[in-house]
């Protein structure tokens, strides 16, 4: 099973490869794109500048480093584009091809059709934004030329297994670490990167330093009764899915008493506390993913620090090696995964699971 690792600058490509990356993916938020559309309408679904390479010359450097290690590089062009953007999108796809990229990650059906018509000689991977929730959708994309599908975060393992069984000629990726968005990526229309526009470069620096991720991961070390009460705006994190909403019940057909009403509001509120933004982990399910034939596991977090990417890659590599060598039973495997998590990240995993079924 392949480990897919993101990069946001050429310097980290070699480091993640040395840590065990099998494949690399990235996005470019170029100057000419930014001038017209800003980061808020990013060309690749990651609206923070810190999540992206700044130019195609940087992409070329990443490709050169990766290819010298026989590692493929995939470029995310997985936004949803309007007609006015197409000249720039085609320019970027063409430049990516020249730079030696091995595949494009695509979500927009119009772009997929255009690439097919233009006979661009690159593999096409369907982004999680393609919302492949069933075998029919996977076949739909395969018929349009896709060779790989990145599955949504919201599928259960049994459901993934069914899709893989029905589509033996496609390769599939699943998410394994970080950014466990509670909303469905391809159906979510909230904007990210708003602060970067409102506060400009001032905001870009803490993002590049991973200030928000450090804060979020620090939450893991707090008592759970406290984490339930922490709200995003305390730390200036303003993703719409984490805002400190005032929540009220506007329709109730059951005439709840006050105590019950408060309990329900508290339960709804728990979906918006900061804990719901803390990085999630699906490594306990690696054995199952390998058994059902998942081709690759993806580390999310293009904007994360190089150190975090190295640690994530090491974590996966260590666990996959253990799995291949020791053939552990489920209990032994879970124990090893949790122990390795603690060794690498210096904290307990905290049961923040990507795929909690059966845990």
């Amino acid at each position, binding site marked *: 099973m392949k480990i897919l690792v993101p990069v946001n600058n050429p310097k980290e490509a070699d480091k993640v490869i040395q840590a065990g990356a099998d494949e690399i993916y990235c996005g470019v938020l170029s100057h000419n794109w930014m001038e017209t*559309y800003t980061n*808020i309408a990013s060309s690749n679904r990651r609206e923070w500048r810190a999540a992206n390479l700044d130019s195609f010359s940087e992409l070329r450097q990443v490709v050169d480093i990766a290819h010298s290690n026989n590692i493929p590089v995939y470029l995310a062009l997985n936004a949803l584009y309007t007609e006015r953007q197409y000249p720039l999108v085609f320019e970027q796809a063409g430049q990516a091809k020249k730079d030696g990229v091995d595949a494009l990650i695509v979500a927009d059906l119009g772009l997929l059709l255009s690439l097919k018509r233009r006979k661009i000689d690159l593999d096409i991977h369907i982004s999680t934004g393609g919302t*492949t929730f069933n075998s*029919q959708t996977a076949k*739909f994309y395969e018929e349009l030329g896709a060779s790989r599908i990145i599955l949504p975060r*919201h599928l259960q393992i049994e459901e993934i297994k069914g899709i893989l069984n029905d589509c033996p000629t496609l390769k599939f990726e699943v998410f394994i670490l970080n950014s466990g968005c509670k909303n469905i990526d391809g159906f979510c229309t909230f*904007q990210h990167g708003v602060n970067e526009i409102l506060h400009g470069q001032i905001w870009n620096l803490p993002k590049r330093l991973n200030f928000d991720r450090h804060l979020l991961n620090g939450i893991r070390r707090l008592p759970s009764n406290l984490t339930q009460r922490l709200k995003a705006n305390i730390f200036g994190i303003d993703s719409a899915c984490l805002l400190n*909403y005032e929540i009220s019940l506007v329709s109730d057909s059951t005439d709840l008493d006050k105590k019950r009403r408060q309990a329900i509001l508290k339960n709804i509120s728990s979906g918006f506390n900061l804990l719901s933004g803390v990085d999630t982990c699906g490594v306990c399910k690696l054995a199952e993913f390998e058994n059902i034939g998942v081709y690759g596991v993806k580390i999310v977090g293009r904007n994360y620090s190089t150190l975090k990417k190295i640690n994530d890659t090491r974590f996966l590599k260590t666990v996959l090696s253990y799995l291949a060598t020791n053939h552990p039973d489920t209990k032994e495997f879970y124990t090893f995964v949790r122990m390795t998590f603690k060794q690498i990240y210096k904290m307990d995993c905290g049961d923040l699971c990507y795929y*909690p079924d059966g*845990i």
Partner: protein
Amino acid sequence: MEQAIFISKIENLKYVNSKYTRLYFGNEFCQRLIPPLEDLKVIRDFVSGHQMSFNLVTPYVTDRGIDALRPILEYVIKNFSDAEIVINDWGIFRLLRREFNHINLILGRLLTKQKRGPRILNLKDKVPQDTIQHFQESNIDVPILSEFLINNGIKRVELDNLLQGIFRKDTCFLKASLYFPFAYVTTTRFCLTASSETGRKFLRNIPSCNKECQKYIFSLRHKNMPVNLFVKGNTQFFKNERLPDNCNNLNIDRIVYEPEIPL
């Protein structure tokens, strides 16, 4: 302008009156709410008695959801003449084209890819006009995609009434419906409402469901969000009661009225 009404449960037939010539029934967001055949029989009698046209609205689905939807699709195609089927899943599109050879398809809100997030209103004076216009458009008006849709039996697209306004070129050739007054913003399978009575251990699981979505609607308010959001079931919506002035220029020839959030 054609007037349609969208309901997700048969009790809401009470909202239908002679103003409406088309009934939308079903839901876009949850396969657990795919209506039973018995409800479709009631709907069939109703639209037949009121001489209304009919649209079945289908959600995005897993393979299990496809199994649940299949008999509904068979029933509708057999029993409703000229029924339109609103698709929100490319797998359902493929199924309908290949197995049912059905060509009366409508591209649903989940696939028309408008940029609905209300916070674009906070940025109106801070980004170039090209960016704002991008947020008013949809990918369905890219010619190659419009042609693909039409060539594959999709003759209409469903749009939400965006807070930042809608822009379509004069040359756009796909007819559109406009949903009013509720627009969806985001959706999940990790349904918060389903666990609202019991709480949950894991944030990322698909909770068991007693259709709590049929009991409660929640409102979310925050100073950074220009409008209130509504949580019904697994989906968040906003309400926009101001219709565009230029529906004809936008090739919008149908209003789909939602008397309640259709879920």
